[in-house]
């Protein structure tokens, strides 16, 4: 073996080893959370209120709260994100307005989640008098989710062949009819995948909901969108740092449910993508 070949062999081995170094902790963390949290899993854990200073009972209100927040986030970010992406792909000309939108998407994607929290607090909670509420929290998470939804919707729209648009327009359809009947139906899988992905991120976020919605302890379900709720990520933060002597399996159990929820959403998005890809005919 000559020098160059030997160097190649060494380099590739090192690269492979480094990659293992990245992967191993991921598996280790998953194993650790699952094995320690499994003991807490029970029907009771998922469906009961926390009791006795959150040292007993379950995580039901936090689970429901997170699900409500995800739904609320989707209600705002999905239409806004899809419409913006449609603008960028189907309507935008190369002008100042378009460039500003693109720049805004880039910057929204980089703003730290805690800054979203501050913004949501000062605008939705204080300025618009929503108070700390599902509404304020959902709006905050929605703005934060926009960049991912827009980027993936844009990609999905751009993947629809130009010829579909030409066919429709050449038959005298208007621009919106063309988008509605000849573009969107074929872009839906990509849009859904991106949306579910961004919602799964929103489900796991803590910083944006700290001051906009999350309740420390609230053992009943909300009655309106102006109520506060507990949320899984914040609950995990609370029981692992703010409340002493919570049994470890409860913390791990909460973490496990949170990871499971996020992973479940990811799996849903992967299944959706595969399902639509099979049906795709072009």
């Amino acid at each position, binding site marked *: 073996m000559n020098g160059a070949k030997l160097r190649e062999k060494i380099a590739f081995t090192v*690269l492979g080893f480094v990659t293992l170094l*990245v992967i191993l902790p991921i598996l280790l*963390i998953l194993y650790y959370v699952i094995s320690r949290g499994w003991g807490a899993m029970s029907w009771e854990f998922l469906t009961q209120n926390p009791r006795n200073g959150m040292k007993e009972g379950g995580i039901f209100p936090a689970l429901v709260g997170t699900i409500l927040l995800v739904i609320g986030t989707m209600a705002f970010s999905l239409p806004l994100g899809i419409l913006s992406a449609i603008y960028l792909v189907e309507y935008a000309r190369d002008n100042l307005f378009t460039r500003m939108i693109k720049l805004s998407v880039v910057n929204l994607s980089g703003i730290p989640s805690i800054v979203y929290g501050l913004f949501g607090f000062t605008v939705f909670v204080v300025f618009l008098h929503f108070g700390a509420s599902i509404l304020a929290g959902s709006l905050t998470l929605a703005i934060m989710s926009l960049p991912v939804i827009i980027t993936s919707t844009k990609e999905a729209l751009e993947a629809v062949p130009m010829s579909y648009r030409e066919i429709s327009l050449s038959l005298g359809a208007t621009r919106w*009819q063309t988008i509605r009947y000849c573009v969107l139906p074929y872009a839906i899988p990509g849009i859904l995948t991106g949306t579910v992905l961004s919602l799964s991120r929103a489900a796991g976020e803590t910083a944006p909901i700290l001051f906009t919605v999350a309740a420390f302890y609230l053992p009943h379900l909300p009655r309106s969108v102006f109520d506060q709720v507990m949320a899984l990520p914040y609950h995990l933060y609370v029981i692992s740092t703010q409340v002493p002597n919570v049994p470890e399996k409860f913390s791990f159990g909460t973490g496990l449910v949170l990871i499971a929820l996020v992973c479940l959403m990811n799996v849903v998005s992967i299944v959706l993508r595969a399902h639509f890809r099979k049906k795709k005919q072009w």
Partner: protein
Amino acid sequence: MNRKWTETVIEAAIRLSGFLLIAFVFLIFLFLLKDSLSLFRVYPFFDFIAGTKWLPISEPPSFGIVPLVMGSFMVTAGAIAICVPIGVAAALYIAEIAPGFLKTILKSLIEVLASIPSVVLGFIGIVWLGPFVKNLFHLRTGMCGLTGVFLLAFMALPTIITISEDALASVPRMYKEAAYGLGATKWQALWRIVLPAASSGIMAAIMLGIGRVIGETMVVMMVTGNAPVIPTSLLQPLRTLTATIAGEMGEAVSGSDHYYALFAVGLVLFIITFILNFTAERFLRRTRR
């Protein structure tokens, strides 16, 4: 006529949502600015930006953000120093060396990592990594800069790996084939040709990685010990910009100087990440071309 009406309404909605996006960025900036200015009316800007003491509830209070900026800077520098070489190496392996099936598995695992909520990693830091660091360096507490650095480096990996891998994959095949034609080994082609050709995409990855680390809140709040003093070593507890906002907002009285000072910290974060993202976008555009 009906068709025309629908068309007009929908197109207006589409334009409006584009306009809203721009409005959000402006609003975020304006609201942060408005509340920050309320601080600077009573507290000198220079003392804020160059003050070395963050003592928001002593009398008189002191809102110098140097300790917080240093805290953020140290954990970010540490995390980036660890995750850039590892991330780029892993990206090289995934993009150029790993066989097809392994590539899929590796990429899915990276996606799993990207989707683990930061609060879960923070929790892992408390129960596992913190005590580990404590025993390793014989510290009084494991809740210190280094624990944060490890976790942040880990969290930034997906960003760095995914974007670098895209950059590597978009280097034209021809470049490599030309190198092979001259008798280079695969490694020589990667090291001398592909890596330099992807450098601006990798720069973008690093920028976005830095943005990710600076902006991360929960992990640093949970594991770095939250001492707002100028850190001299990563083995000490320290406090970042993000953790300060998250940790103190709940206690700050609405409308107090302390309250406005936290918005000023938010403004600083906003400006830093704005610049990072803007630069990253520049690099990315260069790759696409």
